[in-house]
């Protein structure tokens, strides 16, 4: 079983988001992690490999820093990594999916796994677009997965319950929390990860150029949520204060 796992490096969930002077999201001083949903995907890939045999390749698009996420996956037990450096190109979901699909089409694959969304932009589009470009089925938001006889049987949660779907392989499956509990990278695994192959590619290596991946969606501006306003303390005797509180809730806050 040849398994490809799509991995994205994202901000730590604890990171405090700030905008720089140009109004763009500033990454300075922010610690980076593997997108937690991708961690479920890596774990699932490793479990399938351990059961069925085969190979797990992790793939990411990003600068040099995305190596850390790939190394983490290698330390967990993935066999090799592919990192595509997009250079100066601005990416949207379409562009990222185009690059990933191209990189994957150079590999042999029976199954493609990824997180159902990334915790940073949360668009939940990339894995689905990859499936579309490669013309293979996709099952999203999966919490249970069985591989048997060239088919994937996937359980996904719906609004009112869950459904079980069967698709022929190769297919794209995206992971939701609950699919598994990702392992820690083993200490020996971390030491060995450095020696595992990491294939670094440029867009040109994939036969792509800025024209072929030019973004269809551009972010115009970012804004932070309004900071929470300070609370108000109403002084005085309880009965009087309560009357005043009721008045303010009605007339100022307009909640009652």
């Amino acid at each position, binding site marked *: 079983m040849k398994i490809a796992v799509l991995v994205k490096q994202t901000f730590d969930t604890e990171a405090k988001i700030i905008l720089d002077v140009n109004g763009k999201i500033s990454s300075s001083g922010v610690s980076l*992690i593997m997108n937690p949903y991708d961690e479920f995907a890596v774990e699932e890939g490793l479990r399938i490999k351990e059961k069925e045999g085969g190979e797990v390749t992790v793939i990411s698009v990003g600068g040099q820093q995305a190596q*850390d996420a790939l*190394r*983490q996956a290698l*330390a967990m037990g993935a066999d090799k990594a592919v990192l595509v450096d997009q250079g100066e190109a601005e990416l949207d979901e379409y562009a990222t999916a185009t690059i990933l699909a191209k990189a994957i089409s150079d590999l042999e694959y029976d199954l493609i796994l990824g997180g159902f969304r990334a915790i940073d932009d949360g668009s939940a589009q990339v894995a689905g677009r990859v499936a579309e470009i490669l013309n293979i089925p996709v099952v999203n938001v999966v919490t249970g997965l069985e591989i048997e006889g060239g088919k994937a049987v996937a359980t996904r949660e719906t609004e009112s319950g869950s459904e079980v779907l069967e698709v022929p392989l190769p297919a794209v499956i995206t992971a939701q929390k609950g699919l598994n509990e990702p392992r*820690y*990278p*083993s*200490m*020996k695994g*971390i*030491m060995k*990860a*450095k020696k595992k192959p990491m294939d670094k590619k440029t867009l040109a290596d994939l036969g792509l150029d800025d024209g072929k991946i030019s973004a269809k969606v551009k972010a115009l501006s970012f804004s932070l949520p309004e900071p929470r306003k300070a609370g108000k303390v109403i002084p005085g005797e309880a009965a009087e204060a309560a009357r005043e509180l009721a008045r303010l809730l009605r007339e100022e806050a307009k909640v009652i």
Partner: protein
Amino acid sequence: MDYSIFTAEHEAVRKTIRKFVDTELMPHTEQWEKDAYFADWVFPRMGELGFLSLRYPEKYGGAGGDYFMGLVLAEEMARCCIGGLPMAVAVQTDMATPPIMQFGTEEQKQKYLVPALKGQKVACLGITEPNAGSDVASIQTRAVRDGDYWVINGRKTFITNGVRADFITLVAKTNPDLGYNGVSLFLVDKGTPGFTVTRKLDKVGMRSSDTAELLFEDCRVRAENLLGVENRGFHQIMWELQGERLIGAAGAVAGAQYTFEKALAYARQRVQFGKPLVKLQVIAHRLAEMATEIEAARQLVYSTARKFAAGEYPVREISMAKLVGGQVSFRVADMALQIYGGYGYMMEYDVQRAWRDSRLYRIGGGTDEIMKEVIAKTMGL
């Protein structure tokens, strides 16, 4: 800040340990402090994850990492918000077992070191007695040779892990006429007749760690339980103490860093006189002072660790690092408590625990005064 001692692998290990600390230890620490005992599953779990054997060779089940891997463990454990557990782990990894790796026979390594690194056997180190600690030459525990056995008599006290330990790396007098040239090390299994835990001691801080008073009464151990060379125990234990003090200093400084971060976060959100505490110059300056002291201590720990990792034996720098590390950690905890004010004195806030726990760093592993004595000696005084 880039200290150029940590590689991408060190950082990956750090991340993994931090996640373990956050998800598997932190939910229980409060209870363990109340129980005055952390759960027995912690050692085997840490062994299973490879945390106890980071810097040990693969031959003994380790990951084959360098000294700085051990440093990363000590630093990350210090962030579990209680001091007792990291101390217990440091005893396991950096105090009771290194002498087995360094001086032990292959058989001793298989019997004691390998299971200790897996967390299946808990180790403790027996130096201190009711009437001798850093004055190792004056210890009174006696081991007398009797055919194929040694017969041990004496008392040990303040023994970290002593209640739960499966074996002790024990310091005893083998020739009372030879002063420090008459000291030897032994490996003694819990359960050996004559070896008893007489008391679990009640401490001011480090409460999650079990501290014991031990008694040896005609305790007979086989000749092969002698660790290293007979009558060379003093030199062997002095060697051990260097690693103990350095890792202790690293843990103390990392704990201070954690306490500082919490105090900083508190001072940002606590409003007094109409503004957050950090906007008051007196508080801002205090925080600046804390950060500076921590950084200075950390730089000394790291530069000393670099020498130690390179195989040097920098007794003077290690003693200085231990002295400053212990003092800074207590001072930082004290300043942090002051920032919290009345809340800091309440048991429901963690800072009081940092204050109680960090007090030990100025005593355990050799007091401030002993460190100064060692340093003075290196100055020819």
